């Protein structure tokens, strides 16, 4: 199959008060239709930045992104995003949040009853039918994240971009969501880029794992092909030799090759301390 999404040698430089900060350097990646890609790397290396460039929210300083050989210049519904912190609109119910997206994208193609059915279908897909008329502040974190996923899926995007979609969830809900996502992916054959911190999640879900080096000037360190047969079952995989080989490959990359030497400062936001971490030559 041919390339659907071409991330072509992108550099990203952020201007900061202390001078320019190169977040990404020569990130180059080609993704086929229906592929499930995971981006993994240490916090602050630039995963969200890559995703935001593909989404069109940021523009790369050098290089560019091609979707179906057309350059990505602005955000659009064909590249739906599940944001790192769900970003549901708090004044709308779960249903209305999805409705806003569906009405915008399928205004012309669907009739009103068809749209209603489609909204409900997508909320059912993420098992939210019982709480679809509740507002975000009335549902749990996991439910919010599921509505965020339903909203993105309902746009029938060519590429689904997910920024740590399960990051805020407890282990049980997380496993459940991963299984649902595999089912949905099986059914709809979406092209997905997912950012994760979780090695098991990456191996379980992906066709390819993209491992990023530490910033500044982060780039793709290694690419790991995951050739496990689908459908995948987390229990039986736990004993699988190939699964464990892949898992330790990712772990080796993260904790040996790209070990973080800087001290961990937990309470602080990476956005704030990052510009001071890097070394800038002030003439």
């Amino acid at each position: 199959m041919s390339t659907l999404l071409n991330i072509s040698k992108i550099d990203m430089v952020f201007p900061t008060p202390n001078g320019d900060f190169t977040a990404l350097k020569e990130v180059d990646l080609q993704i086929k239709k229906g592929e499930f890609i995971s981006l993994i790397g240490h916090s602050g290396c630039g995963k969200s930045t890559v995703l935001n460039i593909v989404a069109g929210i940021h523009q790369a300083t050098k290089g560019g992104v091609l979707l179906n050989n057309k350059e990505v210049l602005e955000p659009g519904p064909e590249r739906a995003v599940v944001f790192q912190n769900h970003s549901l609109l708090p004044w709308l119910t779960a249903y209305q949040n999805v409705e806003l997206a569906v009405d915008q994208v399928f205004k012309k193609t669907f009739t009103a009853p068809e749209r209603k059915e489609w909204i409900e279908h997508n909320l059912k897909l993420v098992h939210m039918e019982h709480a679809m008329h509740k507002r975000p502040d009335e549902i749990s974190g996991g439910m919010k994240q599921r509505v965020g996923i339903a909203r993105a899926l309902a746009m029938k995007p060519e590429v689904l971009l997910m920024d740590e979609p399960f990051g805020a969830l407890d282990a049980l809900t997380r496993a459940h969501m991963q299984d649902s996502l595999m089912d949905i992916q099986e059914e709809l054959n979406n092209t997905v880029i997912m950012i994760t911190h979780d090695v098991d999640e990456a191996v379980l879900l992906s066709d390819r794992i993209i491992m990023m080096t530490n910033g500044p000037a982060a780039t793709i360190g290694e690419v790991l092909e995951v050739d496990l047969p689908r459908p995948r079952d987390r229990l039986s995989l736990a004993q699988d030799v190939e699964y464990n080989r892949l898992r330790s490959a990712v772990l080796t990359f993260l904790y040996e090759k790209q070990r973080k030497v800087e001290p961990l400062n937990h309470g602080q936001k990476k956005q704030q301390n990052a510009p001071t971490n890097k070394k800038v030559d002030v003439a």
Partner: protein
Amino acid sequence: MIKAFSKSGFNTLNNDFMSQWFVRISTTVKAIMLPIVGIAFFLGLWTIAANNIDTSLGQFPGPKAVGTQIVNLYQEHVDSREKEQAFYQRQELRNAERLKKDPNYPAKIRDYTGKETFLDQIITSLVTVMSGFLLAVIIAIPLGISVGLNKSLNLAINPIIQVFKPVSPLAWLPLVTMVVSAVYTSDAPMFDKSFINSMITVTLCCVWPMVINTAIGVSSINQDWLNVSSVLRLPSLVHVRKIILPASIPAIFTGMRLSLGIAWMVLIAAEMLAQNPGLGKFVWDEFQNGSSQSLSRIMTAVFVIGFIGFLLDRAMLKIQRFVSWDKTTVNR
């Protein structure tokens, strides 16, 4: 052993239950009693102070004098309404008689021109403040949204807002009065000039806090929500209606409540200054009157002004609770 255990378990449960009730009752008692104690204390102090202040218009009014005036003022209102009705009835009778004698007689009814009562003045002030406030909402919210959305417009308009904001609207009053009498010339005016003057003064003092708060609300909207909008490629109008407006409702209401409070204070002063009908004029007339009752009537007006101000704020809060999604900002 088991028995003892369960018994002690029951006991602690019971104790918990009792102490919970105790806490609940004591908080309710506190919530009711403390304000009563406060008010009683205030009334006592006021009575003592009033007894010890002698003015050229007699003794300073205490709670009792104010109580009497409330009854008086209401009675005056009722009397005045009766007079008015009698006045119209007399005219109708007279017209009917004339028509009997001469069928071609053009029947006339003259308007009643009695003095406005206290209640009339309250209504006038309320109508004025609401009209001025609504006019300000119509101007300020679209302006605030545009300023919040557009950085260049913000830079262009900000100095003007910053200079005009601290100006007391009373300083505008003479200018407003002159401009209105020059511009608002119609043979059958729909509104009194004095009403227009007071209303514009109210609008002038409401506009700035509303524009500023709306603009701040709009320009500090969560970036994630803006990203959602841009991923969906919402057209600008939908973007404003579905994202910007609801997201900044809490800030907009903060500005609205702030300005309604100021507006009520300013309106009373403006009515006093310009002799425009309303509670301010009532206070001023009583002061000029200088009868033995004047001070207690003014004191009554002071309480009524305070109470209405309080009710206006409560009403805004109720509306805010109804429209706003952000319940946390409402409880302040």
